[in-house]
């Protein structure tokens, strides 16, 4: 049973991991989630109209990053490409970067993440609940140690060097 759980997770995870493999589909879904983020931004970010150019820019940056990820002959996670596109477009030497930065400033950093977690809460399945009830508690403890260890060790090294 354990093995089945893992392989099901595996197939689903792999499909989720490569949004650049189905660009048409991703373009539509991305539009839907951007609208959710756009609304979420209303309260602590900016009114809808003011934030619109920023949200459209974010949408365009993501699509551009995914297209690049699809075209290049080697693999780098799509998040890395999206991030590189957005860094490039906001470098002071990039034409129009001041306008881009200005528009994006109307999009609140944390407001964009709020809907992501709402999707995550809704996405939990019976499988995950079962896993935690059965053997999960050990893995939960180990996971929290893993996160703590990595975070504190990284912070400590950076602290020493800074």
């Amino acid at each position, binding site marked *: 049973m354990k*093995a089945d759980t893992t392989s099901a997770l595996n197939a689903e*995870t792999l499909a989720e991991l490569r*949004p650049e493999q189905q660009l048409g*589909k*991703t373009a539509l*879904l*991305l539009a839907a989630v951007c*609208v959710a983020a756009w*609304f*979420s931004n*209303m*309260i*602590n970010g900016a009114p809808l109209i003011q934030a619109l150019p920023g*949200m459209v820019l974010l949408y365009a*940056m993501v699509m551009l*990053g995914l297209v690049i990820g699809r075209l290049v002959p080697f693999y*780098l*996670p*799509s*998040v*890395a490409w*999206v*991030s590189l596109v*957005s*860094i490039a477009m906001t*470098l002071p030497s990039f034409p129009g970067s001041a306008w881009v930065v200005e528009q*994006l400033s109307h*999009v609140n950093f*944390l407001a964009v*993440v*709020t809907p*992501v977690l*709402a*999707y*995550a*809460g*809704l*996405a*939990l*399945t019976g499988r*995950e*609940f079962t896993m935690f009830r*059965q*053997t*999960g508690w*050990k893995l939960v403890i*180990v*996971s*929290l*140690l893993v*996160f703590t*260890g*990595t*975070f*504190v*060790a*990284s912070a400590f*090294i*950076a*602290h020493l060097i800074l």
Partner: protein
Amino acid sequence: MDMKLLLDWRLHLTVVLASLLAEAIGILRIPLGPGTLLLLPLFYAFIIGVLLNPHLFSGMQRIIPKRVSNAAGPLIMISILPFIAKFGSTIGPAIEQIIAAGPALILQELGNLGTMLLALPFAVLVLRMGREAIGATYSIAREPNIAIISDKYGLRSPEGIGIMGVYVVGTMFGTLYFALMAGYLASLNVLDIRALAMACGVGSGSMVAACSGALAEAAPHLRDELLAFSGASNLLTYATGLYVSLFIALPAAEWLYKRLGGNPLQEVRHES
């Protein structure tokens, strides 16, 4: 998965309403011992999502049918991408500071090894875990690390089960945990807050978001710099993390596991 389900209006409307409610509650600060816990809107959004989850509360099927809830899974990965783009846009304008902090940024990647020093002995000696412990603790279990384990041992192996367990926990609770930990450590004032920002970068997209967001709330005057540092660190993690975990962390985990007396041949089962 069927596009109709993925674009189901009930799902997206629920998410929008949950997000609006969460944003309206806003950030709460709770004093705890010498520090402060920061509760961010993304926590409430997650909790609202769980409460409306039809797999957990069958009464919720009237609002969100189970098949629609299943469609939310693939959307997590896509909905994090606009955030990644927003994140990158904090790096571009701060590029000079980031280059100046270069050595610290690169060397803190080795902090990934701290994972196994703490977690592997605990998993083997206290929890009596078998080879699952190697998969679970050699890395922070993000996508590139799963690829390595899958390649080397297969995901049906004990190592594979270990890493998938941490991956699931990370996806579900990592975000919340990172934000709580970062906000708390920042309020203790022991480590340079810029170092904490760099350490945020070790996680996956939503972990980094929550972690650096919490730091930015703790020190609003450094906001832009903190976001830029954690973004740059996250990018480096994606670029170098694969190699550090393949050539250093995994062999080191195997070595340490043997030293701790783990049996490499015996397949240990969970006592469920």
